[in-house]
């Protein structure tokens, strides 16, 4: 469904991605992991056509996405930082997205799930960080799309909202959707992901399931395995 083919990208002198190739297909949750600045968000933004690769190509449903925009109708995207026009109310913002995308979204279910009813009439600038993130989730998830991309979905969420988010993501997985997720919360990775894509120094350093990662690192806990990968990054046996 999604293919990254030998992607290169640098910002000025900083080389962020140096030949990343990876594919996502057949449903399930793929967690994109890596230290800060390893290019996780850049890779995701490329899929959405917000950042262009210097070299390489991204395919969506077998077609290159370059200069295309219609394919975004099939992607639900949760940006890392919830930034919206400050003067709109939550309802206006939801209507704006509905107006742009058309179709029949199911926002009410999500509004109920995250207890947003009392915030609907408020302006975005008067919302707390966590509430903004909930609005962000509603906007991203209200459409029933085959691909879901979540960039740091847990930011600012309280434990109850986090549990609900997890259930929501698992529910979507059960429908056979392809879900990409980046996060620094290891418990979220353990609970959700079917597969891990570990980016390091601009390349795919490891790709596989959680047990495979633990095996690879020789540790019995995910957090330690990740730390092990980061400490022994000179190791050459990259498994893709």
């Amino acid at each position: 469904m999604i293919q990254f083919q030998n992607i290169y990208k640098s910002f000025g002198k900083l080389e962020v991605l140096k030949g990343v190739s990876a594919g996502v297909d057949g449903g399930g949750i793929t967690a994109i992991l890596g230290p800060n600045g390893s290019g996780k968000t850049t890779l995701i933004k490329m899929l959405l056509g917000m950042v262009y690769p210097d070299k390489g190509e991204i395919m969506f449903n077998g077609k290159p996405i370059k200069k295309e925009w219609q394919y975004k109708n099939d992607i639900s995207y949760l940006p890392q930082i919830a930034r919206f026009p400050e003067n709109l109310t939550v309802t206006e913002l939801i209507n704006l997205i509905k107006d742009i995308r058309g179709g029949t979204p199911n926002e009410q279910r999500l509004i109920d799930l995250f207890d947003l009813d009392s915030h609907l009439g408020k302006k975005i600038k008067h919302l707390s960080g966590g509430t903004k993130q909930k609005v962000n989730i509603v906007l991203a998830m209200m459409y029933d799309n085959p691909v879901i991309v979540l960039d740091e979905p847990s930011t600012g969420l309280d434990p109850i909202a986090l549990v609900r988010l997890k259930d929501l993501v698992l529910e979507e997985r059960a429908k056979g959707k392809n879900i990409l997720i980046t996060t620094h919360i290891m418990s979220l990775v353990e609970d959700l992901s079917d597969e891990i894509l570990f980016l390091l120094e601009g390349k795919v350093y490891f790709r596989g399931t959680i047990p495979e990662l633990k095996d690879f690192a020789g540790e019995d806990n995910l957090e330690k395995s990740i730390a092990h990968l980061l400490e022994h990054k000179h190791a050459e046996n990259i498994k893709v």
Partner: protein
Amino acid sequence: MLKILKYSFYDLLRSKWTLIYFLFFLLITQGLLYITGDEAKTIVGLLNVVVILCPLIATVFGTVNFYNSREFTELLLAQPLKRRDIFIGQYLGMTLSLSIGYFLGVLIPFVIHSITYTVDYSVLSILLFVGVFLTFIFSALSFLISLITDNKIKGFGLSILTWLLLALVYDGMQLFLLSMLDNYPLEKISLVMTFLNPIDLSRVMLMLKLDMSALLGYTGAVFNKFFGSSFGYAISLSALLIWTVIPVYFINRISMKKDF
């Protein structure tokens, strides 16, 4: 594109700045009409306000609005939309709301005035037209500069500098050049130089319509002959149009390549 235009337009129309802009022109036009009691004098008075202020406000507003709506832009970029529609839509939404503020602010007092006095709408329409064009041109220039410059302060500085160059420095340079070379026939050169600056062009177009070319001496006669012809008028119009189209073309081009 229409959806984006609509949202940008409503968002700005609701903001108090558009209202302040409208009220400013309403008050100044009404004030001038009241003080002078004469529409031609009012238009001359307004001319100086319009050729300096419309570009300045469009510049300031264009820059501030661009940087403030970054969040909105990022939200839109992730949606199934063409990049061109996002940026051109936002530009048009902003420019239209400013233009309407200016247009109505000047027009309404004249319409009220016309109840008791006769108003020459041909001159007034040029004043309105020129102000709207200047708004379109300078919004586009500041939008383009903001698009290229990620740093807010730098973008704001560059936009103001552009306005300063075209509104003030250019005139000074032209004057300096003309006084340096006053032994030569300079009518053609000054005509060309006028065309290269939208502010000067607007000012001259309106002054000639007001029959004030006698004040400009022989150059005025040449200008009058040129601008009085339908050819000259078509050329002036094209020059203003080119001043609008070129920055908009680059807004489109650069937005297609930029990373967000």
